[in-house]
């Protein structure tokens, strides 16, 4: 157990370092275009670029620059955003908080919904309910987030006029503006989690211990709740944790569509505006969240599953 913990955390740190090297090579060296041109624009003179490079230490050897860059990152000095003309940290933190709120509500709706639907369809494999849920799940995962955002906007904003079409929260936080973005994310994501829950539940329902529980005459309800569910919900735990990774992609689309001032929109904005310091910080945050949640998923799975824990 302890060994596994160290192994996982070691791999997590290793991944982050490799990713930081890749990011550095892509964005800070001349590999894919001159950083000075990217910051100052195409019309800057050579002297301007040269003095910019001098000023920002771009004329030092790559290894030293990487070490300094990583040091700055590790100590929380994320640099200055060109677009927002201020420290990256001040721009990033409120945006992260907004996305956390959106993510929280998405998960708060998606997890119960997909677990209940998954367990219901896994209980009786091949039943009408099972087939309906599975086809419905395929249907919702087939609609890209931007398309379902368009559909929901057409229905709830344009048609019924129930909800606001943008979520910029210009006049302070308003829960109403959070409904559509969260709904789009839930609809796109729940199908996959439900399918995984169903597979896990169906497998457990065919196991020896569930069969013997049924054969010894326990009420069906008790077999499901006390015997089947406990084991069937281990696998969905991992899937849900890995879903955080998907959510990071989803929020980019949804926040862009609804003009929600969150982390995903910021990342996209940074990349479209060549705001390198901001893009690097956003990408690193995304990777830390993604790899961190995967590590927790792995460790949690081991912890929840005694068959692995004790071997």
């Amino acid at each position, binding site marked *: 157990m302890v060994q596994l913990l160290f192994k996982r955390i070691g791999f997590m740190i290793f*991944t982050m370092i490799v990713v930081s090297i890749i990011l550095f090579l892509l964005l800070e060296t001349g590999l894919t275009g001159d950083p000075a041109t990217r910051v100052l624009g195409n019309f800057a003179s050579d002297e301007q670029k040269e003095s910019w490079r001098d000023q920002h230490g771009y004329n030092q050897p790559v290894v030293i620059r990487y070490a300094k860059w990583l040091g700055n990152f590790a100590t929380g000095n994320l640099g200055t955003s060109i677009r927002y003309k201020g420290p990256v940290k001040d721009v990033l933190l409120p945006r992260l908080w907004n996305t956390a709120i959106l993510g929280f509500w998405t998960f708060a709706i998606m997890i119960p919904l997909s677990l209940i639907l998954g367990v219901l369809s896994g209980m009786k494999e091949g039943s009408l309910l099972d087939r309906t849920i599975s086809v419905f799940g395929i249907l919702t995962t087939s609609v890209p987030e*931007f*398309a379902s955002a368009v559909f929901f906007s*057409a229905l709830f904003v344009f048609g019924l006029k129930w909800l606001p079409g943008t979520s910029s929260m210009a006049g302070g936080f308003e829960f109403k503006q959070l409904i559509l973005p969260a709904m789009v994310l839930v609809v796109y994501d729940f199908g996959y989690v439900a399918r995984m829950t169903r597979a896990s539940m169906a497998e457990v329902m065919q196991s020896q211990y569930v069969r013997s529980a049924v054969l010894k005459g326990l009420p069906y309800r008790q077999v499901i709740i006390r015997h089947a569910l406990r084991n069937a919900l281990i696998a969905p735990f991992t899937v849900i944790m890995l879903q955080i*990774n998907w959510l990071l992609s989803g929020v980019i689309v949804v926040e862009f569509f609804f003009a929600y001032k969150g982390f995903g929109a910021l990342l996209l904005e940074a990349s479209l505006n060549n705001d390198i310091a901001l893009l690097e910080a956003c990408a690193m945050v995304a990777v830390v969240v993604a790899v961190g949640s995967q590590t927790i998923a792995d460790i949690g799975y081991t912890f929840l599953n005694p068959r692995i824990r004790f071997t």
Partner: protein
Amino acid sequence: MTTQSTTEMPTVGIGATIWRVIKSFGLLKESWVGMIGIFLVLFWVLVAIFAPLIAHFDPNASIMPFAKPGTVDTSGYTFWLGTDHMGRDILSRIVWGSRTVLTFAPLATLSAYSVGILMGLMAGYRGGLIDDILSRISDIILSFPVLVLYIIVIATIGASGLNIVIAITFASSPGIMRIVRGLVLDLRNRDYVAAAQTRGESDWRIMLFEILPNARGPLIVDACLRLGYVIITIGVLGFLGLGLPPPDPDWGGMVNETRQMAMVFPHMTLFPCIAISSLILGFNLLADGLREISLRD
């Protein structure tokens, strides 16, 4: 004599494989879900092939801006789906856009599969250090949130058709590699592989002609799912403004260009979204039908 038999072997193998693939598609009529899927996919394939015959207007020509669906042109033709803010016929753009999607999505999937299969075969069959290195690399790439990866890659190398194919290959070949690797680990201990090894066939020959054809079942299902997913990716990139450069029609790009006007003219965004969703649904249902059939045997 011996050389002849070895040169004939693969063609028979490939021919038989293709025949079995066609037969498994034929079995689809037993699954109504799969039938709907194949119907949707075929519909869009036919639309893409006959695009010049179906679309009456030039997809990039400005004719009449902001026309609602059903408006009749001065020349007597109807804009069945209306026009966009630049006066371009939306139906024609969707029809021509199907060509864009059905060119780049299969191309990107094929490219990702070529890389993924080669990596998976090497990792699974050779094992050892190669396996370790390839698996670590794919672990790292897969730990990235996909869209973040696409945005960074496209933002640094620029948006173009080729670059989208490169980005998709980069991001999805590790996943394919994992699947192939798992299948190879199971298949490499089979008798026919041992027989081929005793015959003295080369590693690559064994991987490509003995192992790969026998791993095709799960790979075909995965390819259908992945094709759907690649279409989503191309659409999302277009929607975010990182897709194919305008003006050529691209479904995601159409939504991006007109989404600001969606509150007043919802038809501009609605129809491209229906188009892309139906095509993706087609591939996903097809994959579901194929899986159902493969489980039945």
